[in-house]
């Protein structure tokens, strides 16, 4: 059925190349042309016209004369050569990408593949919506990820500025260097904040997870009075603007720091860490409460009664029965708490002293006083660490689910 329909359509479109494939490919070409024109400094209009013409030519030539596989490779190689003439190696790479996109686009439109995702009886408007939807999704994904991706090549800049130099764009070796990474790993100005962050975040996480989990379990009991109110108060650090919490915490912890130093005789440096850790724990608790409460919704209360029935005391019940079942919620809450503390700059600026300077604080001052690509190198490292951390947690979660037979495969 599908084959027959699309075959008929393809036949119709072969004659009607001008009415559909060529204009739309030309449109894609124009969009790429604008970007290329901007990058090459030719101006938007020149890029637009050039892109329009090239898109049309590509669509016509490929669909008329070349089979699919050959045609796509021809487009890639053709544009790469064109790019190389204008912008050497970097231009060639950009050209190859443009060629791949336009070549794919021309055949995709021409062969009727754009109907592949919808049932054969869908109307034109439904097909249009289906594809627009995919494009919108693609764009959202692009806008979320592009700002993060862009810093990675910049962090290998041989210069001390946030600039894509001509050497970098041409992909020449002298445009790149790892000196900003060396700076990060050898400079005490970066290593000390890194160490502070690695001290503060885990302690804050442990406190948040412990208190947050207990609070969530307590609040899920139906006999606790004023549950809504208590919940609202505990969640408030997440809702109140950070700068307000930070100002309040500054005065609270200043007094507390004095008390710790004078009455308890704790050293200034240790009391500084305690202050920041407690402040960060308060910020992390709401995340733990929310995720653990969500997992507790799916928790079968009769299990605890069954455990009690078999003679287990509440503590044993918690650790042997309840905890393993709500563990995914606890872990993801802990992860959020960790990242909150690790990324936090406002509260630590207020509560911490210079001895407790964390990585985000150093990045913040670095960005303000000295725009150094070392910040980008640090950001790249942090992005990679975050990706590894999330991947590990996800893999562990799947593994434990598989072991417990909760999900097939």
């Amino acid at each position, binding site marked *: 059925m599908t084959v027959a329909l699309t075959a008929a359509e393809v036949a119709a479109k072969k004659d009607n190349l001008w009415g559909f494939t060529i204009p739309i490919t030309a449109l894609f070409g124009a969009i790429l042309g604008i970007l290329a024109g901007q990058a090459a400094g030719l101006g938007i209009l020149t890029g637009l016209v050039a892109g329009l013409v090239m898109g049309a030519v590509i669509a016509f030539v490929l669909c008329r004369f070349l089979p699919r596989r050959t045609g796509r490779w021809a487009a890639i190689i053709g544009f790469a050569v064109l790019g190389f003439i204008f912008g050497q190696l970097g231009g060639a790479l950009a050209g190859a990408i443009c060629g791949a996109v336009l070549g794919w686009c021309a055949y995709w439109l021409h062969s009727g593949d754009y109907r592949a995702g919808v049932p054969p009886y869908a109307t034109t408007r439904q097909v249009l919506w289906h594809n627009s939807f995919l494009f919108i999704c693609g764009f959202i994904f692009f806008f979320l990820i592009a700002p993060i991706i862009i810093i990675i090549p910049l962090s290998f800049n041989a210069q001390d*500025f946030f600039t894509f130099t001509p050497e970098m764009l041409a992909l020449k070796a002298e445009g790149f260097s790892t000196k900003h990474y060396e700076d990060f790993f050898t400079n005490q100005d970066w290593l000390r904040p890194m160490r502070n962050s690695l001290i503060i975040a885990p302690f804050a996480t442990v406190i948040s997870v412990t208190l947050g989990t207990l609070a969530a379990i307590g609040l899920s009991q139906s006999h606790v009075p004023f549950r809504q109110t208590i919940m609202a108060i505990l969640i408030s650090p997440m809702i109140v603007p950070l700068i307000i919490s930070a100002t309040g915490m500054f*005065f609270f912890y*200043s007094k507390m720091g004095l008390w710790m130093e004078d009455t308890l005789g704790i050293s200034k440096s240790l009391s500084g860490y305690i202050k920041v850790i407690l402040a960060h724990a308060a910020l992390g608790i709401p995340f733990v409460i929310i995720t653990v409460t969500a997992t507790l919704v799916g928790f079968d209360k009769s299990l605890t009664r069954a455990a009690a029935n078999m003679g287990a005391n509440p503590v044993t019940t918690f650790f042997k029965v309840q905890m393993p079942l709500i563990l995914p919620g606890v872990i993801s809450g802990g992860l959020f708490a960790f990242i909150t503390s690790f990324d936090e700059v406002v509260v630590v600026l207020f509560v911490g*002293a*210079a001895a407790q300077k964390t990585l985000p604080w150093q990045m913040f*001052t670095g960005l*303000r*006083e000295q*725009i150094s690509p070392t910040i980008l190198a640090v950001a790249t490292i942090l992005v990679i660490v975050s990706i590894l951390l999330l991947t590990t947690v996800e893999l562990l979660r799947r593994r434990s689910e598989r072991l417990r037979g909760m999900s097939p495969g």
Partner: protein
Amino acid sequence: MKLTKTLMATTALSMTSVTAFADGHMASEMTIVSWGGAYSASQQAAYHDPYAEMTGVTIINDESSAEAVAKLRAMNEAGNVTWDVVDVVASDAIRLCDEGLALEIDADEQLAPGDDGSTASEDFGDLLVSDCFIPQIVYSTTAGYRTDLVGDTPPTSICAMFDLEAYPGMRSLERRPINNMEWALLCDGVAKEDVYDVLETDEGQAQAFAKLDTIKDNVVWWSAGADTPQLLADGEVVMGTTYNGRLFALIEEQKQPVAMLWDAQVFDLDGWIIPAGLSPEREARALDYVRFATDTQRLADQAKYISYGPARASSAPLVGQHATLGIDMAQHMPTDPENAKNTFLYNYEWWADYRDDLDAKFQAWLAQ
């Protein structure tokens, strides 16, 4: 007899140890607040390292000078001042001194005399703008331009900033009225000595804003000293203002195609204050540090690392070569006669009176 001897020996020993560790009554750790970046690095090399080596004190660097006034106010209210010595610009020092947040200093008593025999107050001269302020460097806010983007006739006057015909393209100016208002009037035909008189009137302010209006669409407004160097390196602006030390680093260390436009540079001062309300040990330590760090030789040493002029007259002859580049630093100082042919004096008292008002007007004008 023997016992007496031992006792005497012990007493003598403890006496010597008291004199040897005369700074036993000073704190062994101090937090010094400064601006960060290359400036902090120059202080580290010229002051902190030698002082730490000499006394064994641990120095912690805090880079919070930009919000020093607000933070000191908050610390004072909370009764927990965690800073020992703070690097601030002169106008902030005046504000902090007026609010009683900074310690008053008797220059001749508490600062080192000059190497040439002059007293501290003679040596610093007019730069002692406040009772609490211990001057350290003279810096200037001045302009730099891209040598490859200005054609065959490089600019020689600050008025090039307002000349879109001869020098088309974007320029970067600081996001505040100070300096910009004065330059606008200077380039609108107001004589240098009349600038503040004109700026006092509503018409004068309107005149300055009208001049700034002519380039408003071509201005990138900066708020951090690192912005203009980045914009110049990118070629996003043709010319822009920033602190002269930043331009020095951009030109001599980063080798960017940029040149200085010293014309109508505005001098400003930067120096130390000691917060009020420190414990006696910490205050003694802070005073000891400041006395060391602002002596003739130390101020001259800082100029080895950054192109800011030492605040003491007696330091000027001692300014030598850059520590790593090996170039003569004297000619890169804002105070060098060749660079200081046409300078503009920033009027502290005037701005102290008019700042709040003009800040509000400037922000409103920006938002228009």
